[in-house]
């Protein structure tokens, strides 16, 4: 029987599936629910300095090949979040904290506030495609900004820092290298693409209240796989492959491109909250059939 356990940034994961940030995740109970349904690790929804309500509804809709979302970082703010996640002892898997901000000082402030939370790692998206002041809308995806923000947060914590990049960056390897140089322990490749737009023709209006939103799901997968493939060649730090992973085969595709673990989000809508169990089972089935004994053997296999 294939061994699907992995070690990532000092975390021991029972399988390589990780609940991606932004899907449930505002409360301890919500990430525990993903853990109870098989996730190898879970990531909380990103926390900002102050409380945010995010965009008005509609915020998340689906289309023929995936999902479109503009939630806008709704969260109770750093102080409340620090209380919510103060005790994670009853969650059986590693919990990854996620933080974001509009300025470097805000990233640092949130990191300071979350210091007391027993997270296994810290992730920060520099890549949200649809929230004014954040991510690609604020230029946080440039190599220079990535370096500055990463450096500042790494200085503030002993935890490994994961930088989440945007798949729409053309020179993705340069940004990954900048993050690595600034002290990032891993790359999450990555965020949603776009932003894209869906218009209701009967009501003659973009459906999302934010008008445009990030594209995820099957439509995103080839783009995310190619980005993982490019980054694998450019950096030595581990990669978490996120984008359109629906099945075990999709996960293995990510591993072969160079990821050591996979993020899962949109697939929860298509296959249920127990998608983590399903994908893990399918990975093991593939490995048994193809004669792989460990996940490691498949990482980067497409480069050989």
């Amino acid at each position, binding site marked *: 029987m294939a061994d699907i356990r992995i070690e990532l940034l000092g975390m021991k994961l029972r399988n390589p599936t990780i609940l991606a940030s932004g*899907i*449930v*995740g*505002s*409360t301890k*109970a*919500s*990430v*525990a*629910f*993903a853990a*109870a349904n098989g996730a190898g690790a879970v990531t909380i*929804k990103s926390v900002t300095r102050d*409380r*945010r*309500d*995010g965009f*008005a*509804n*509609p*915020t*998340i*809709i*689906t*289309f*023929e090949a995936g*999902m479109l*979302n503009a*939630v806008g970082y*709704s*969260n*109770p*703010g750093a102080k*409340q979040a620090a209380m*919510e996640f103060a005790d994670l002892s009853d969650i059986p898997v590693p919990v990854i904290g996620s933080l974001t901000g509009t300025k470097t000082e805000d990233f640092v402030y949130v990191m300071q506030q979350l210091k007391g939370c027993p997270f296994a790692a810290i992730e920060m998206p520099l890549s949200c495609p649809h929230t004014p002041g954040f991510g690609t809308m604020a230029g946080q995806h440039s190599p220079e900004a990535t370096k500055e923000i990463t450096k500042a947060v790494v200085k503030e914590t002993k935890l490994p820092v994961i930088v989440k990049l945007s798949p729409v960056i053309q020179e993705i390897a340069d940004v990954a290298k900048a993050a690595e140089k600034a002290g990032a322990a891993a790359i999450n490749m990555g965020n949603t693409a776009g932003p894209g737009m*869906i218009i*209701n*023709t*009967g*009501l003659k*209006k973009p*459906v999302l*209240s934010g008008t445009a939103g990030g594209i995820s799901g099957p439509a995103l997968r080839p783009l995310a796989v190619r980005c993982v493939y490019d980054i694998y060649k450019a950096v030595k730090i581990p990669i978490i492959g996120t984008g359109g992973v*629906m*099945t*075990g*085969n999709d996960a293995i595709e990510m591993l072969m491109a160079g990821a050591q673990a996979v993020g899962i*989000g*949109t697939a*929860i*809508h*298509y*296959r249920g*909250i127990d998608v983590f169990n399903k994908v893990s089972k*399918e990975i093991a*089935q*593939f490995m048994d*059939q*193809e004669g792989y004994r460990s996940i490691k053997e498949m990482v980067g296999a497409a480069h050989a």
Partner: protein
Amino acid sequence: MHDIPSFSFSRPARLEQPQAVRIEQIVDEAKNIKSFYFSLDADCKAGQFLMVWLPGVGMKPMAVSSQSGKLASITTAAVGSFSKRLFELKVGDRMGVQGPYGKPFDLDAGKSFVLVGGGYGTATMVFLADQLLAKNKKVTMICGARSKEYLLYTDRFKAMKMETLYCTDDGSFGRKGFVTQALKEALKEKPDCICTCGPEPMMKAVLGMAQEAKIRCQLSIERYMKCGIGICGSCCIDPTGERICTEGTVFDAKRAAALTEFGRYHRDGSATRHDF
């Protein structure tokens, strides 16, 4: 030959996007409360909700209050900015509707049912009564409101083959007092199942009475929602993290009793906690 295992999943044919519908009929139900009827290309079950979209204003989950053939309705009070804008719409105007979502009531939980509706929760209960009566179940309806002018569906109830008990806080119609008093009497008949929807303190009291009487109980629980499709996490409830939009809205007594936040607090759009 395919020797690589292929993993597939059945993708839902329906896209989770609002569809433009035309308002066919508007009914004044009570003071500041209206039902909006529209044609819907989906079968709704009691306990489910629809997302109603007004472009430029917002989108809100609303309980289905009826469906007959393709004609479905929602019932709402003009309390917030969204419903006030909804109330400005006229027959023939368009709005967006998406869904239905949520786990519905189990109609096969017995032969005799007592339904307890409080306030706008009565919208869910009247639709449930429709569906139970269509299955030849015995139904007793208990509905409560502040006073006579807030009681919903009194004409609709009259036309239904069931006993209806009204309770008002001020005694202006039916009996004076809470629905729990009427429920106490109804429980003497030993119904198979109690179903309830309404203010959470009321549901909590109903749950307690059901457990004490050892009668099966189903509760439709409400929480702040954004997406309605199980992704955003706004409606995750403590301590299980279950999503009201997906694992709910209907919980049986055992599952509801395990919810430490039930009857105590809820969260808003930023996930900030508020006590009831």
